[in-house]
């Protein structure tokens, strides 16, 4: 009996010891965590910061900014008066409709063209759409007034920016608002119809889901992979310290890294594009344009990656910097919240982030057939170049000790 008592006592003593040992281990863990404040900062501050960021975007959304559109009027069909058989070219309803657009809270007519007088109107409007100056072309057809005057349903055609699939419906809804105002003010029973005319839609013999998914995925993947590929290439190479005790120059070491990884990315982008084409991606633009765009974006990912690598002291630091920057770059890229809806200071930041340009650039080539050499391309090049210069400065000053 006494023996059992001792054993039980011993058992509890062991448990107690084990518990205190465990507590001390926990304490040690906290001490270790504290030695890396950067890690803690990312873990504790980043998530609330991201949510706060999003909340400022949401609040901004209520202050809706009107959709920039161009109106192209073809309305010029003659109207034959059944009483005296006079032939009149009329466009009586065009002006009231334009007024409705002006009045609409959701629309902002950036350009108004009279196509019956000026034959290149549609071409000009289309160019504006490609450059993302406007989000939608509203086309008033040839027989608009004639149909309405004869009590027939009038048609309004729409060419929305289809590069961001999620926005198409939003654009059409805004146009519909102008139609509502027009029918109310002109006492027309709702006989006017919206006819979404999407010259930028994906042809039937291509896989629509695949193509519209890739428009979103390609920029993210290209940027992300180039970034991940390069974030460690400087921090993890310890023998650089010893290399520097040979007649080598720091700039040579760095250039060699740029060259190597640019070459790897070249092959990678070829692979991505080949796989996408064989998988059934619809590319309205040329493949060369697409390749240049994708490669430029990848290069910007490499530029950010090498910069992170040159600026971080340890591998952990590089990984954390990568994570933090990646989250911010994606959040502010405009794929989640349209850049126009962000507060102005966030817009300014997003302006210099690679994905904010890479995404629209690639989708414009894929869905609108745009040329790569536009604003986004030059912006991307400029951002990469600035990063490259910064990387050189940081790397030349980096401390190396054998």
């Amino acid at each position: 009996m006494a023996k059992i008592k001792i054993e039980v006592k011993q058992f509890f003593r062991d448990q107690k010891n084990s518990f205190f040992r465990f507590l001390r281990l926990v304490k040690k863990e906290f001490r270790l965590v504290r030695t890396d404040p950067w890690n803690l900062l990312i873990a504790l501050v980043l998530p609330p910061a991201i949510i706060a960021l999003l909340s400022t975007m949401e609040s901004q959304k209520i202050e809706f900014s009107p959709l920039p559109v161009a109106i192209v009027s073809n309305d010029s069909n003659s109207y034959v008066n059944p009483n005296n058989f006079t032939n009149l070219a009329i466009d009586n309803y065009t002006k009231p409709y334009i007024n409705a657009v002006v009045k609409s809270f959701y629309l902002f007519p950036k350009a108004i063209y009279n196509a019956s007088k000026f034959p290149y109107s549609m071409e000009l409007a289309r160019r504006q759409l490609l450059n993302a100056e406007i989000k939608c072309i509203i086309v008033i057809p040839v027989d608009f007034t004639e149909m309405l005057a004869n009590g027939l349903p009038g048609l309004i055609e729409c060419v929305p920016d289809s590069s961001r699939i999620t926005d198409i419906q939003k654009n059409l809804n805004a146009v519909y608002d102008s139609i509502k105002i027009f029918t109310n003010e002109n006492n027309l029973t709702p006989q006017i119809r919206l006819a979404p005319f999407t010259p930028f839609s994906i042809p039937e013999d291509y896989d629509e889901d695949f193509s519209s998914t890739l428009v979103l995925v390609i920029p993210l993947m290209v940027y992300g992979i180039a970034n991940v590929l390069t974030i460690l290439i400087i921090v993890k190479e310890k023998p650089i310290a010893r290399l520097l005790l040979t007649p080598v120059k720091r700039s040579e070491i760095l250039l060699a890294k740029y060259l190597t990884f640019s070459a790897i990315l070249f092959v990678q982008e070829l692979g991505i594009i080949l796989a996408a084409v064989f998988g059934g991606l619809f590319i309205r633009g040329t493949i060369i344009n697409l390749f240049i765009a994708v490669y430029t974006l990848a290069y910007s990912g490499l530029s950010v990656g090498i910069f992170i690598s040159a600026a971080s002291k340890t591998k952990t630091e590089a990984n954390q910097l990568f994570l933090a920057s990646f989250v911010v770059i994606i959040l502010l890229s405009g794929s989640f919240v349209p850049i126009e809806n962000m507060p102005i200071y966030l817009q300014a930041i997003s302006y210099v982030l690679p994905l904010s340009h890479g995404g629209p650039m690639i989708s414009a080539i894929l869905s609108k057939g745009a040329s790569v050499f536009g604003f986004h391309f030059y912006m991307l090049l400029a951002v990469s170049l600035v990063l490259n210069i910064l990387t050189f400065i940081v790397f030349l000053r980096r401390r190396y000790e054998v």
Partner: protein
Amino acid sequence: MRKIEEQNSNEVVVDVQNLNVSFGEAHIIHDVSFQVKKGEIIGLFGISGAGKTTIIRVLTCQIKSKNWTGKVLVTDLTPEKKKNHQKILSRIGYVPQLELLNLYFELSPLINIETFASNYGMKKEEAQKVAEELFTILDIAEDTWTNALKKLSGGEKKRVSMAIGLIHSPDVLFLDEPTTGVDANKRYDILNYLKKLNRRLGTTMFVITHDLEAALVCDKTAILREGKLLAFDTPQNLIQTLPSKGLLARLTIEDLTEEMIEIIQEYEHCEKISRVGVSEVEIFLNNFEKNLNYFIDYLLEKNIKIVSMSRDVANFRRFFQILIQEQEEMERKEEKEKENIGRERREGRAIEDEREIEENNAANE
């Protein structure tokens, strides 16, 4: 041309005069001067923090010239001028302390060699040829040449690292603690390889170490303490400066105590005594041959029982210890004098400190 150079064994490869190094307020190196001649192995000894690495870093262009003063020439070029750096670096080799940080572990020894050799403008075949020679001298087995370096043993990695340091036939090879972290037997191996390379290739070597055994292979030794050069000469010459030219008596004494050592020290011809074991002491006498017998009489008189006795010549280790000890004693004396001056002021503070310690102890309990 090359031949004339080789004949002139007095050619100075490294010349350091009045080197001072400071980082901000910290004055690390004080007025250090020495010369390294072609073909010599120089050992720079000193306990941790003495400034050995700092000196090498000046010589290898790693410290900005604003942090140091003095005349420094490495292969007749001064690292003070930035435009000399590449030239100097192309003429020197460096074997750093830690292999883990300084070799490409995923690559093979040959590829490692090739990577470093190309920075000296050497072609692949050329580097390969020299590497094979060096690997043979260094006994690196041929079947490991193309394996990933991480599969080699610590000693083998060290030897590969030495081969890299020598690949471009440098005028001088710097080695930072080549024997630290290597087990006792391998240490001697490494030292032997250094000697072998020095003899076969005639490479001048500058070794920093706190491994006093390394003096065995050094032509000259320099001893550094707290940034000051205390001695610079051949080990033999340095030992000769000891009393009786380094002759000493090693005694094993029964039940050796500190009191006994004090008694021995009181003997009029005893220059120095150091305890070297539980019951062993080494004693330097002035006029050793003459005074040894009288000394033994003195011990018998004082009732100190000698178990055994031998005569010996001091080794470098002993010289180093004595030199450092003397230096420390001198400094302690100086400090005491300084302390006497400022005592009053500090006494109040000391009492405060004591109270604090007491309070802390109480809190801990």
